[in-house]
């Protein structure tokens, strides 16, 4: 409502005003919407964090505000399913009572997650799958994009469009036929099956990003390299990959995010807990029948989100540069 009011107000005030005033209004309006969106997007993670500080008993307590983090230390052993090792740790943390209750609760949840569940195995499996998928994706997508984007051959244009179209097929449609394929290869219930199928999602999109990026490089650059005596492999590795590094990083982040956060495939293909990955594993092990261990689920989700967050923070500038370059030329 307020937004609309300001939007309607601004032009009327600008009519008689100076350029400086209209710029000030533009600034105020943009800040207003930026803050609005920031709140909108930060509320879910905040709620997650608040919940992650509590025990299941505290969460189900109707007397406390669910929007606030834990105010008092939870009682040990109240998390159902907590094994003895976890309890011992819990007790140790409780002794460091100088810490705020919320931090204590959060650390207790982490400790229990690490010691009493298969969360560390999921984390390791996810890391293995993701690293492999990123490597496979790049090894396929970069040369594919180079040949589709830079070498004109019969059908290269149609192929480039086709690559993008395959990306548009949703994975919820693909997982049934892929189940057959993975099963036929004997890779069901193994995270290596995921390493095999995730590239069906990542390769087309990454190829598409890289095609756009490679095409934005002036053609004189490869002609100069050609005259300088470079063959196509040298051209790719010594000219195109370094020049298109921002695009390459954008594609890497994309492949990383997709395979880190994929849900449908692991849910469908994996059922042993030593093979599960973070997304499906957290849900299957922390939701037993209709018992939701919300505190630990939220903690697990936060920990699972940490690696992508760290990577984004470091590579954000490259990511944006790469995406926009691909967008304008793709």
């Amino acid at each position: 409502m307020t937004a609309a009011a300001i939007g309607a107000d601004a032009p009327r005030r600008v009519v008689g005003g100076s350029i400086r005033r209209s710029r000030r209004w533009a600034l105020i309006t943009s800040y207003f919407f930026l803050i609005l969106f920031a709140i909108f997007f930060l509320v879910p993670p905040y709620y997650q964090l608040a919940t992650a500080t509590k025990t299941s008993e505290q969460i189900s307590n109707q007397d406390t505000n669910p929007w606030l983090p834990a105010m008092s230390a939870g009682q040990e052993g109240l998390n159902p399913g907590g094994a003895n090792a976890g309890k011992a740790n819990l007790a140790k943390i409780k002794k460091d009572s100088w810490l705020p209750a919320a931090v204590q609760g959060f650390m207790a949840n982490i400790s229990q997650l690490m010691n009493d569940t298969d969360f560390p195995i999921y984390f390791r499996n996810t890391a293995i799958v993701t690293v492999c998928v990123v490597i496979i994706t790049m090894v396929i997508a970069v040369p594919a994009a180079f040949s589709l984007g830079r070498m004109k051959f019969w059908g290269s244009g149609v192929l480039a469009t086709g690559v993008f179209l395959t990306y548009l097929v949703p994975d919820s449609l693909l997982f049934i036929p892929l189940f057959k394929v993975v099963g036929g290869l004997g890779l069901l219930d193994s995270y290596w099956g995921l390493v095999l199928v995730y590239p069906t999602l990542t390769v087309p999109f990454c190829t598409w990003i890289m095609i756009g990026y490679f095409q934005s490089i002036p053609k004189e650059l490869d002609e100069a390299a050609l005259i300088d005596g470079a063959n196509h492999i040298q051209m790719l590795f010594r000219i195109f990959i370094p020049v298109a590094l921002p695009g390459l990083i954008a594609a890497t982040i994309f492949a990383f995010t997709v395979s880190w956060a994929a849900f449908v495939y692991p849910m469908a293909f994996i059922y042993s807990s030593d093979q599960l990955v973070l997304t499906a594993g957290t849900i299957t092990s922390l939701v037993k029948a209709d018992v939701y261990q919300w505190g630990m689920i939220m903690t697990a989700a936060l920990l699972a989100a940490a690696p992508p967050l760290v990577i984004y923070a470091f590579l954000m500038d490259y990511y944006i540069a790469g995406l926009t370059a691909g967008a304008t030329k793709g």
Partner: protein
Amino acid sequence: MANVALRKVVKKYDRTEAVRGIDLDIADKEFIVLVGPSGCGKSTTLRMIAGLEEVTDGEILIGGDLVNDVPPKDRDIAMVFQNYALYPHMTVYENMSFGLRLKKFPKAEIKSRVDHAAGILGITELLERRPRQLSGGQRQRVAMGRAIVRNPRVFLFDEPLSNLDAKLRVQMRTEIKKVHQTVKTTTVYVTHDQIEAMTLADRVVVMNAGTIEQLGTPHDLYHTPRTKFVAGFIGSPAMNFVNCKLVEAAGGGLSTRLGNGLTFKVPPDRTQRYKSHVGRELLFGLRPEHITEPRGDLRPDCQEFDVTLDVVEPMGMETMVYFMVEDTEVCGRVNPASAGAPGQPMRLVAELGNMHLIDPQTEAVI
């Protein structure tokens, strides 16, 4: 270093015929400029010499070897592009040495060659910079440096100065000429700017619509153009063309009747050449610099005439005066001191020794 020869070279793209059978012999150490309007096939010709475009028909020889099917890297040529095409992620040193490094030259040899080229071009202080830290003129120098260090048999330039501002263009033009005088490599240079062509070339190739219109020294092209196209393309401001009728003069000899009652006597030494065209409607061509104010005694090949000035454009060193002959605007170049005002009559002198007559059907200079 080597000579380059093109034999009936044709280049067809899907529908368009960009180059239509070009014959050209370029001598060793020669500086050849391909000049012509945009789209006439200059770049295509150059790129075929470089090996970046396949030849549809005909032969290209470098140093006597047929190179039609030789890839660019084995032709031993170097090319400078309009947008420089420097590798953005490499320093100037790395840019210049890239080709040598690919060919696995010894490090010391690479260094001495780069230092030598950088010395010639005055970019020794820039070797550690990256292209984005350089000005347009410096990038241009690096692009030339990259060509020089390879010590190729042929230099190819495709409009290397057209991204520079006017002042820098003149400066770099001189620089390119100096470099050629130092390294003496056979050079093929493409430009659409006829002044660049005239100042740089040993010989100029004027191209039009995929064919060679005329090949000659700058002096030849200026004084004895063979077609209307060349006559109009070379020289700035462009040659004036006025419709005329060639008639027998009263006192013997020939004269051209231009309209507005303006009649110019044809110099006697041209009578023989033009005699067979008497009575025809032709095009009379005369450059602005050959229409001047009266200067001292009238030479025998000059003729005075009176006009009413239309437009007067002072240029500083000289003044351009424009007047109408029938419905054609004609330009003359006069001394600023003697230029009249617009709307005023002025007496001018036509240096008819420099006139041309053009057959309007074939557009050939008679």
